[in-house]
């Protein structure tokens, strides 16, 4: 269950962004992750209420986008869809491939809510 520590790391980053922008609260958080990131999306979601309790993001929605597993063949240069344990080229069958996407674990964006007063001051 390393998802809890990863969720706590996520909260730190979200709190820093909220602080930097003088936000009152966080409306939503968008995370992109791939099946080869080693993190389970559902477990991350389960960890979220625990990690976010008492923070500016406790009412925020955690939106997880899954990135596809895609490889580029080092041999024929073709790009193809792949699965986490079958990263071979679909065109020529070579296993010498480079991962194009599928291992991301990225905080993409944070939607912040600001009160009128804060807007007026800044």
């Amino acid at each position, binding site marked *: *269950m*390393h998802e809890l*520590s*990863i969720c706590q*790391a*996520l909260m*730190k*980053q979200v709190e820093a*962004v909220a602080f930097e*922008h003088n*936000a009152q609260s966080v*409306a939503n958080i*968008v*995370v*992109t992750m*791939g099946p*080869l*990131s*080693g*993190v389970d999306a559902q477990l991350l979601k389960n960890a979220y209420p625990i990690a976010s309790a008492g923070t500016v993001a406790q009412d925020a929605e955690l939106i997880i*986008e899954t*990135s*596809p597993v*895609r*490889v580029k063949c080092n041999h024929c240069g073709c790009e193809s869809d792949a699965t*986490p*344990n*079958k*990263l*071979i080229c679909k065109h020529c069958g070579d*296993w*010498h*491939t*480079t*991962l*194009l*996407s*599928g*291992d*991301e*674990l*990225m*905080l*993409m*964006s*944070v*939607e*912040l*809510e*600001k009160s009128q007063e804060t807007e007026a001051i800044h």
Partner: protein
Amino acid sequence: MCDTCGCNITHGNESLIRPGGKLEKTENGKEAVSVLHNLLHENDHTALHNREHFDSHNVLAINLMSSPGAGKTSLLEATIQQLDDNIRIAVIEGDLETENDAERIRQYGVKAIQIATGSACHLDAHMIHQALHNLDLAEFDIVFIENIGNLVCPASFDLGQHQNVVLLSVPEGDDKPAKYPVMFRSADLVMISKSDLLPILDDFKIDKAKNYLQDIASDAPIIEVSAKDKSGMSQWIDWINQQIKARKKYLEQHPVLHTHHHHHEYGTD
């Protein structure tokens, strides 16, 4: 991938941040802030820092990972006995509980630091950083980090090591790379441990294990090793010696510029 030059924008996510993409929109009274930070940014930063420490002392750091009971500590014991005497070894041991593994290592007169994680299922860069405060790196040539026995979580955390070695023991079965692709993809070297059991557990096929590794596009070399009958140990020792040499050569060509300012005193926190 870093978070500064844009290389973190991949096929999987670029559509989101293009004009008109999901992340570009803002609603009334709300502000969407694009972040594009790896979630493990802080860990990775500390790992980089650890690697600078190792490099500034010419120390090779090897992270050993496997499922519990694959023979990491036994391999280390055999390694200590077979590595050249002038190579000074230290071991950082990770376990949920007990000092047992560190004590096994200390019996050989080797410095061992035990990290007891309590309930954490992996070592992270911060734990290694703490451990380095109790290790005078000037006294060592190689640091082995024995990670928590677990084929899942440790794969996600960079510790600042130079090489990842993943053990697959014969009793576990030859299809582990297909079941745990993230872990086996992280391997710079795969060791098929407990190879003395191959004649008994003959459903384990080395060729099948190799095929499963190719399926995940791994070109990591494979060494069959038995810490018990010592077969394959010379190949493993050769590999370590090559890594030490390669690291030295690399550091001669790329001298360490220790850029951060805080000072590390051995024995302080």
